């Protein structure tokens, strides 16, 4: 009956009857969902619907109260955020979490952490291995910044960027780890119309490079424009899912957003 249970192989990420309570508050209630590989899936819903909670559960910031999250068929609900990053899931944050004490290039270089190995002792001794790694990390960092059109400012402190550029830098940093799945928490919040258009182009370009994207966003024009599939949450429950046009026509969605007429 449930399409998710019928063919689970197709999905890169699956939520299986996931619930999360904070104290007495039920933030997510029995949510099952599937994210298809190499698609853009948007999670929408009114404020407090549990969208960010869902992203936090997937990235291991806290574990689900019940239910499971599966990535490429393996359970990841018990893993810590850094372990999930190594599996190939990275994310951005709604309230920017840049390393303001570091340059733009260095921010992206931290993003390359999962692709490098040097640990304390070899770094202290600056072994040839570390030297080689540093060179690669620097080149790779520059090429990612080039992709995101930030290379000109590589040596600037990240706090000196404009707001829109800071959003792009968060994406650059998340992209640096070569993720299979990237979670974007309100990527166009606070951006101008032109910046929003650019962000849509960028996200489509990232998808073309083979990265699956799951995003949370309030800007409906943007969501309808970029998404292959939309999942609607309301009061912690999934109330609808489908293509943008299907969701737009769904009466339960209209009711959730506009109230009963």
């Amino acid at each position, binding site marked *: 009956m449930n399409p998710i249970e019928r063919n689970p192989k197709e999905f890169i990420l699956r939520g299986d009857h996931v619930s999360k309570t904070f104290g007495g508050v039920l933030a997510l209630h029995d949510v099952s969902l599937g994210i298809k590989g190499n698609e853009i899936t948007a999670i929408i819903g009114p404020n407090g619907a549990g969208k960010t909670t869902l992203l936090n559960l997937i990235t291991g910031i806290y574990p689900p109260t019940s239910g499971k999250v599966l990535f490429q068929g393996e359970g990841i609900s018990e893993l810590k955020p*850094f372990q999930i990053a190594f599996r190939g899931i990275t994310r951005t944050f709604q309230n920017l979490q840049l390393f303001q004490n570091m*340059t733009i290039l260095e921010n992206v270089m931290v993003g390359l952490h999962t692709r490098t190995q040097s640990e304390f002792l070899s770094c202290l001794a600056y072994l040839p291995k570390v030297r080689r790694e540093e060179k690669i990390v620097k080149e790779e960092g520059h090429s990612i910044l080039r992709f995101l059109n930030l290379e000109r400012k590589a040596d600037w402190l990240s706090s000196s960027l404009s707001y829109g550029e800071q959003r792009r830098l968060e994406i650059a940093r998340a992209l640096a780890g070569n993720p299979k799945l990237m979670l974007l928490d309100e990527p166009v919040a606070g951006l101008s119309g032109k910046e929003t258009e650019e962000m849509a182009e960028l996200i489509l370009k990232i998808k073309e490079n083979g990265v699956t994207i799951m995003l949370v966003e309030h800007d409906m024009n943007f969501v309808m424009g970029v998404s292959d599939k939309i999942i609607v949450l309301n009061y912690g429950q999934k109330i609808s899912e489908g293509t943008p046009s299907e969701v737009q026509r769904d009466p339960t969605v209209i009711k959730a957003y506009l109230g009963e007429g």
Partner: protein
Amino acid sequence: MEKQTGYKEVNSIVIQFMSFFIRKKENLFLLLFALAIILIPLGVKNKYYILVMNVVGLNTIVVVGLNLLIGFAGQISLGHAAFYGMGAYLSAVLTTTYHLPPWPTILIAMIATGTVAYFVGYPSLKLKGHYLVMATLGFSIIVNILMVELDKITGGPSGFPGIPPLSIGKLVFDNDFKNFYLIWTFVFFSILLSFNLVHSRVGRALRAIHGSEIAANTLGVDTDKYKTKVFVLSAMFASLAGSLYAHYITFISPRSFDFYYSIQVVTMVIVGGMGSIWGSFFGAGLLTLLSEILHVAEKYNIIAYGAILTLVLVFFPEGVGAGLYSVWQRWKIKTLTKESSNK
């Protein structure tokens, strides 16, 4: 509002100038530093000056290690006097009472201190918030009490005399000049190693933890492990300095390793500049000299420390080195502000 943005821009430009300057010239600076170490004793014949410089050197080792913890990883320890003291007492007791060879003992002391630091740090660093401060504070008080109370082993409050000096073959480090070279060689290498660490994957991960622990974690940095490891490393730096101190002065007492010393080294980190390796050296130098000068009025010493810390935090929150640099660049700032406002 407008003024603030302008200031922010200028500030970041200044910092960029600085980082460019430091990276390109870093090796040159290290070379000059090594040259200075070789040449200074040839010019300075006053034993007291050399003694003070040796104390500066020992403090620099502790402060450089502590700065990796405070300035880079953003975690605060108020227990480094205990690690410094553990190095000193382990070296003293094991070589004097049990006649172990001094050099391997320094290593043993470092490993033992690092192990203890692991057990102090690991549980408190797993918790969110500044629990490390409380854990290290309590720990250092316990260690200091043990130094006083275990008088059969440590000599108690009257101290532990007769520690043998270090030697390499026939060369015995038994005077201030010889110890100058010994201590400052270690200072040189602790600075070199710290630079290596800072400009690598691990150093970036540590600064990322300081910047945003949650973001670092979601990018693959095992934040608990890195915080614990850098804490252990900084305790081992302190232990090394403690061992060198014991073999140099040949007498140690609990008073040198009390809570006041922990405060002193944290102050040195802040005055020198958090996250600046050379700043650690300046901080250690400045405050060691200051406390020597203030020796004539010892009871005002602590007031002066407080006053200086306050002044530095108010006027140079980035540390004295960076602060003075930006003062020196003031004319440049002015021209840059004009340029950016013209745009």
